[in-house]
């Protein structure tokens, strides 16, 4: 090269193209090998997160912990003073419960994994509350009833279960999560907990239970998710069942 008149060559080796195509190839390879990589990383991060005082590992993908999902712009806060859970529809005794009344009912504590349909899983999470079947029996479900619809005080979210699903012993109207009163961000003071299904079924900020004659798809189900959301047997996923 002439140092007096340096000229930039345009005929060098096409390294840029190779880096570009190599990145694309690695991306495709990543998608193909993701199941193996993910299992390894989850195990590794799970061990690291236990010893991580900063909590930064919680921000890594699959780093463990819950993620906050809300479909509403803002969610009002409800306390013991103004929270009500109404039960109506095809029942003999429509009524509404205060938080104190719910706390006075027999409590059930379950410890299961939580599985989100987007992939994250939180192992061994305790939930405690009143069995939904208990509330339904107390209200007197009519023979024509087939399903239960849930509404939430965020004003937007809805969910639903068949009556058989709703009567399972691992479906709770949950008051406590991780052995604490459920915080607002986690859907408190009262949320639904459907242990055997993907976590979008466990509606946060539960305020209404309506017994109906057929299943009405809920919020995410209108957007393409399965209504019968069994963990490992729906939404095209093969996760380990949670309950």
């Amino acid at each position, binding site marked *: 090269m002439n140092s007096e008149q340096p*000229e930039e060559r345009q005929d060098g080796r096409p390294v840029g193209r190779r880096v570009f195509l190599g990145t694309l190839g690695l991306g495709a390879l990543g998608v193909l090998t*993701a199941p193996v990589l993910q299992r390894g990383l989850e195990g590794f991060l799970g061990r690291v997160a236990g010893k991580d005082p900063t909590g930064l590992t919680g921000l890594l993908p699959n780093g463990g912990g819950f993620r906050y999902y809300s479909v509403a712009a803002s969610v009002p806060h409800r306390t013991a003073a103004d929270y009500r859970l109404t039960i109506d529809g095809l029942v003999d005794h429509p009524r509404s419960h205060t938080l104190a009344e719910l706390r006075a009912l027999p409590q059930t504590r379950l410890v299961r994994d939580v599985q989100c349909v987007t992939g994250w899983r939180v192992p061994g999470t305790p939930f405690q509350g009143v069995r939904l079947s208990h509330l339904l029996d107390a209200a007197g479900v009519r023979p024509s009833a087939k399903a239960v619809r849930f509404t939430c005080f965020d004003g937007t979210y809805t969910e639903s279960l068949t009556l058989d699903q709703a009567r399972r012993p691992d479906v709770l109207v949950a008051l406590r999560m991780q052995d604490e009163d459920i915080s607002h961000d986690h859907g408190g003071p009262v949320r639904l907990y459907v242990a055997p299904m993907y976590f979008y079924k466990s509606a946060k900020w539960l305020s209404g239970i309506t017994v109906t004659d057929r299943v009405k798809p809920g919020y995410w189900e209108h957007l393409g998710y399965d209504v019968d959301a069994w963990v490992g047997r729906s939404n095209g996923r093969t996760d380990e069942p949670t309950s």
Partner: protein
Amino acid sequence: MSLRAEAPAPPSARVHRFTRAERWVHRATAALMGACVVTAAFLYIPQLAVMVGRRELVVRIHECAGLALPVPVLLGLASRAFRADLRFLNRFGPHDKVWLRAALRRDKRRAARPAGKFNAGQKIYAAWIAGATLVMLGTGLMMWFTRLTPLMWRTSATFVHDWLALTVGVVLAGHIGMALGDPEARRGLRTGTVTEEWARREHPLWRR
């Protein structure tokens, strides 16, 4: 004034570096990338997600910005200057090897860092971010239109999308950090011209 051609330009003279089309490609890409990063943060970081909610709207903005991200570059292909720059970015000469070796040794001496219009680091960054953007677009589409691919793939796509997002975030921070440290480089992308002195120092092999 025929002597002018032989006399070296004064160090303060402005040298043309980027055309209007090239500057707009960079600006539009940066804006769309910024929209992707900000919306991603609001979807992903719990503390931010708690502040905003409205998951559906944020997802929609993220999807639209991501889909549009390659468009400025594709439109830029209509510009001759932009195509010439892509060739510069693609081709590596012997001096690029020298530059990379010096970078690995953290050798910051001018003589150790020969560069044409773009240095070797910029070339690798450009090629990598282009590839990474398309991987993000592909995995993003797989998560978006779940019926197009076997549903099992969505988990894999989510995995790649999440980890690559983190990597892109780190690399992008490096890119922006380096730009913040070099006002003249930023002026080049803002106004299209740089000083003769800067060009000679940072890009001694750049043919003009």
